[in-house]
């Protein structure tokens, strides 16, 4: 589970909500706005993650409770083998509660960086959610309509000393809504490696958000990992920093939805 869940959730949540209007913003402002829209906000969501291959597929379902980018709890609800496992992140630290052995395991940093269950979500593109602002220079290079929404096309080039695996990232961010509707990841040789797409914009808790995130490597376009939000609720008063305690990690129970 580990990093990729964290990453996926963070990336996904970041790319949601907004009521701000685009004005004359710099490329960096746009990326930062898109990145920060979720900062400090609490939410609960129910998600399905599917690893899809030409010959087979596997599906995981999970529920999450989160506060900004720094705090979250994820409860695995399926498959049966992993059911009841819980992951909690507080800032840079992460723990895994395994009810079968009644133990909390602290997840070391190297494991947090690992890909999860062979999904196509890689690490550095998403784990450091803030780095799309801090670690790159940004430039608007065009416009495109995606999912019927007008998008800025923004090129992100990593700073020389940035701990980033990508040579370049291109993002399409909706002008009005700040959704990250498409992201292309290029390696150091400027070869396109992965494409991530946000789609299926639906109303969740009174706000329209892209509810499906899919990512696929360019050289294996039929290998797809999808993350679908089936339920989301924002600004939950009971979710404060103290919600993310070891006691609560062990006690939390799955919600009805």
């Amino acid at each position: 589970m580990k990093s990729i869940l964290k990453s996926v959730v963070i990336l996904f949540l970041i790319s949601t909500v907004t009521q701000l209007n685009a004005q004359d913003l710099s490329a960096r402002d746009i990326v930062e706005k898109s990145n920060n829209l979720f900062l400090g906000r609490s939410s609960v969501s129910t998600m399905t993650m599917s690893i899809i291959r030409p010959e087979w597929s596997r599906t995981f379902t999970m529920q999450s409770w989160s506060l900004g980018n720094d705090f979250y709890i994820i409860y695995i609800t399926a498959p049966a083998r992993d059911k009841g496992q819980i992951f909690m992140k507080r800032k840079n630290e992460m723990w895994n509660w395994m009810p079968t052995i009644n133990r909390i395991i602290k997840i070391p940093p190297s494991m947090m960086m690992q890909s999860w269950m062979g999904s196509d979500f890689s690490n550095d593109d998403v784990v450091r959610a803030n780095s799309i602002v801090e670690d790159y220079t940004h430039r608007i290079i065009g416009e495109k309509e995606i999912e019927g929404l007008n998008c800025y096309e923004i090129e992100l080039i990593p700073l020389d000393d940035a701990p980033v695996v990508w040579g370049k990232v291109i993002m399409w961010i909706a002008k009005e809504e700040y959704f990250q509707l498409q992201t292309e990841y290029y390696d150091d040789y400027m070869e396109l490696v992965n494409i991530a797409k946000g789609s299926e914009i639906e109303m969740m808790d009174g706000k329209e958000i892209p509810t499906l995130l899919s990512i696929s490597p360019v050289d294996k376009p039929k290998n797809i990992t999808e993350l679908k939000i089936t339920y989301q609720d924002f600004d939950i008063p009971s979710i404060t920093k103290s919600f993310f305690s070891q006691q609560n990690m062990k006690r939390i129970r799955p919600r009805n939805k």
Partner: protein
Amino acid sequence: MKKLIIVFFLGFLSGSLFSQEENKNYTLGGYLQTLEMVWVPTNTSQWLTMNTLSNRIDFRWYSGDKIETYVAMRNIVSYGQIPFDFYPYMADLSVNDNGKLDLTHLITKDSSYFMMTNIDRAYFQFTNDKFELVVGRQRINWGINLVWTPNDIFNSSNYFDFDYVQRPGSDAILAQYYTGMSSSIQFAIKMDKDDKTTYAALYRCNNWKYDFQILAGVMRDDIVLGAGWAGQIGCAGFVGEGTYFKNKNHSDSSGVFVASVTFNYSFKKGLFLQAAILFNSAGTTQNAGQEGMFALDKEISAKTFTRAKFSTFIQASMPLSPLINTSISGIFNPNDKSGYFGPSIDISLNENIGFMIMSQLFMGNTGSEFGSYGSMLFSRLKWSF
């Protein structure tokens, strides 16, 4: 035989009936599996086999916000040549329950098979704000490492028993108070079948990105003092724990210090490496073999994981695809030069059915720690619900 069929049928039914269940005030889960074991003892070329069908049912019931009830049971039938060759020793060993309450029941046995049922969890948990009280058969897991857990004075377990990750429970009372986000004070007491008690207090906290714990108490005949941590050096995981044991009845006896440290590291493509060492001040640097036919058939406690002074462990695991996980682990006693080698492959056949093949190959001279166990091959088909 009829009883056997009925129990397994019920296992199946409970799985299919309840696996769809969504959030209610209870959860029900478990598995049904078949495990084939082939054993090649040392000094013979004869293969011995045993098949074990087992079913586990985990039931949690939440009455309101404050009270949780958890009951879990295993139903097991083993048959084949090994139970026959070691009749009735093997059947008797399997139904041994170390708890104060005897919750393990032999349903039936004959020379070629035995069938048993075992309740390994049965407790009530009461929660009030920061306070928790757990009463009944439970697993109190204070260990930190994967293989050797000297802090695990209530439920320490045998690494080679790979097929029983839940482990037996203790008949105990655990009181816990959470003093912060990641800190707590616990006090626990358990009683064994022979009326000996283990009781101890543990304080856990988090500082400088490390989890720390210290414990003090009595484990049966020993006064214990222990401490452990889980943290990192660079990106590598760095965990360890140590416990000092001193016989409370013989003040002139010397104490025993048992400690284990583990490093682990995950590489980009999913390769996960870990290495651990165990030190036992009372251990021997000579041959560390002991009685017992199987590697599983050992009395394990936090004080006696092995008779060796030093033990080393290394493991590499790597997913070949999201469906196939492989792992190789090894344990080596540097003094008597005996060791264990355990390759395994685990394949996901569909969302809920897994197939695993693994081997436990023991090597060493006569009298050495691992020299007398021979080699074992296991294959397991497991349906989780």
